[in-house]
């Protein structure tokens, strides 16, 4: 056809680039030849800011990284700090952290699935997902007072004890969400349009995924069973009985299924944690002016988006010398081009949705 390759700019103001991502897409007719993500529109200089903040002051910054999963960020940072301090926190605090982190995973996966469906035209699914997410937001609001930028974890424990109100809300959400997930699966799973748009689209081979450092649900959808909660347990995840869903397709459909199954597993973990919530202290006494002896540490957690790690180097003062973040979205975004090549232009948005990136985390 006498139609030359054209270069399209998707974003930074585009309805489906999840914020301010810009994609330089080269297409031949509708076939994608090249995708170049251009990032940095949301850069706030987080890592430099952290060098001038005390350890507890850094905590609120981490909320603003992955703003759809604030608690997971808090947890990753706090665990790294505690590892550097060399303290063991009370069991009850650990369980409450697990509950909060898994609730956050639920919320994050719900919005991921919702946005992915929305990008392929199934707007109702997004709204159903957000109604369930609303319940989780309410839990956070009741617990900490914040909804989106939840500040749910503190160095040395959690800010509040779990009271009857919050556990009641959690149990109500747990009772309600499975039905909602079933609704969503009813709308999508056997839907021929949905299958056509997701099956065999954006396939990535396990070795490529491994080479690119892909983590999280996207990695588990390639058949690689890697979940830090299982492989290197933290926060007493080893106490809970849960499975890590793994599928071998490596396409958008499998990433969607992995997320759906992970939501079920998260609910299992929350239920177990609520039932077996140990008595005791919910935080350690930590000095307000926290000085950490010199040293360096790296700690990763399984955030909803993938493997989230914090590297902290302390020079003995109340401020860290350097904090470096290994953000899953940033690394997962690398594989976009490999996934998109040869697919159609319409698939880019679906693949991007299935990667579940958050620009706050990429640009830092």
């Amino acid at each position, binding site marked *: 056809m006498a139609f030359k390759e*054209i270069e*399209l700019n998707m974003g930074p103001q*585009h*309805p*489906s680039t999840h914020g301010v991502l810009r994609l330089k897409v080269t297409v031949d007719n*509708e076939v994608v030849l090249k995708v170049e993500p251009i990032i940095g529109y949301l850069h706030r200089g987080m890592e430099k800011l952290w060098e001038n903040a005390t350890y507890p002051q850094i905590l609120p910054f981490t909320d603003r990284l992955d703003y759809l999963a604030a608690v997971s960020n808090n947890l990753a940072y706090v665990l790294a700090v505690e590892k550097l301090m060399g303290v063991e926190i009370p069991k009850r605090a650990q369980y409450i952290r697990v509950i909060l982190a898994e609730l956050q995973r639920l919320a994050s996966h719900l919005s991921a699935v919702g946005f992915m*469906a*929305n*990008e*392929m*035209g*199934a*707007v*109702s699914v997004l*709204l*159903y997902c957000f*109604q369930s997410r609303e319940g989780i937001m309410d839990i956070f609001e009741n617990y900490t007072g914040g909804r989106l930028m939840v500040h749910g974890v503190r160095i040395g424990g959690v800010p509040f004890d779990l009271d009857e109100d919050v556990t009641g809300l959690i149990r109500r959400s747990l009772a309600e969400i499975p039905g909602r997930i079933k609704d969503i699966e009813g*709308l*999508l799973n056997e*839907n021929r*349009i*949905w299958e*056509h*748009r997701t099956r065999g689209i954006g396939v990535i081979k396990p070795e490529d995924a491994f080479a690119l450092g892909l983590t999280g649900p996207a990695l588990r959808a390639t058949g690689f069973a890697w979940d830090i909660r299982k492989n290197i347990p933290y926060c007493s995840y080893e106490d809970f009985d849960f499975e890590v869903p793994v599928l071998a397709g490596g396409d958008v459909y499998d990433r969607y299924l992995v997320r759906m199954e992970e939501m079920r597993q998260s609910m299992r973990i929350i239920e177990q944690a609520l039932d077996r919530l140990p008595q005791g202290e919910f935080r350690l006494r930590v000095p307000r002016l926290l000085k950490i002896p010199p040293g360096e540490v790296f700690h990763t957690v399984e955030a909803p988006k993938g493997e989230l790690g914090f590297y902290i180097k302390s020079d003995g003062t109340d401020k860290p010398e350097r904090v470096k973040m290994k953000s899953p979205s940033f690394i997962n975004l690398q594989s976009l081009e490999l996934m998109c090549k040869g697919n*159609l*232009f*319409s*698939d*880019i*948005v679906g693949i991007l949705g299935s990667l579940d990136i958050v620009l706050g985390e990429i640009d830092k």
Partner: protein
Amino acid sequence: MRAETWIFEFLIPVAKIIAVILYPMIMVIVMIWLERRVVAWIQGRVGPNRVGFQGLLQPIADALKLFFKEDIIPKEADAFLFNISPPLVMFSSLLAFCFVPLGESFRVGGYTLNLWVADSPVGLLLVLGLSAIGVFGIIFGGWASNSKYPLMGALRSVVQVLSYEIPIGLTVLTVVFFSGSIDLIEIVNHQQHGRVWFGFMLPVSFVVFWISGIAETNRAPFDLPEAESELVAGYHTEYSGLKFAYFYIAEYTHMVLVSSLVVILFFGGWLPPFPNVRFLSFLGWIPGFVWYLIKIMFFLYVYVWIRATLPRYRFDALIKLAWKWLVPLSLANLFVVVALKYLL
């Protein structure tokens, strides 16, 4: 000139012409409201409910807002084509309504009032032709914008409409074959007198026509030319203000037109249902126009329902659906219908 002739020869036709512009407009307003409320209801939201009773005046408020917006023509755009395409789209779908009968004619005193503007013996052809002309507006608009997203939207639209014209033509043929006329009024009259409506007689034709009709109006799940998550707003990305409103209204008018066609061709137009059931004969007392509206509203509702349920087709699947399924199906359908008609 006598006053009566003046009324009959001049006033009533002019009133009809005004009505034929007003009627789609009112339907568009109702439709925009219905769509937003029904989609909101399906999705568990509230939807617009502040302006007027239950938000009924919201579309008017939106139109007023668009009216006062700045009219932007991109610098490198072809101004002539850019300006001409919204009226072209609007004109084609409005003009088609001249040939769409809204009800049976009735007598007022000595005067027979027809509820249509023009009674053409080739009404069906005209309506199909006019609704196809609207595509030119989309192509011109997408091309003249001199922008990449509108261009891709326009290209998709061309392919889509070209593909779906064929099954529409083939299925309409089956109806024409049975009624022996391409006059829309004749087609409705043919379904009267205890005969089965064509929709039940030719279910395959109806289904193919309905699917193609949705595709022809660029509605979900076939709304690729304006797929918002991919092409921002498709062919009307660069339009603003009143010109954007033209495209918007034209799309809804087109939906009303397709629903009208479905009702006329397959569901007996203004005819009441169950004419043979004795105890339901009171249904015949309700004026034809009301039946007609009820049926149209049903199909418009189905439009909205589908939109709220299904994901969007991908470009290649859309073309495949047309050429690999609908065209062979409608061809086979045509042959079967013709064979049956001659054998029985």
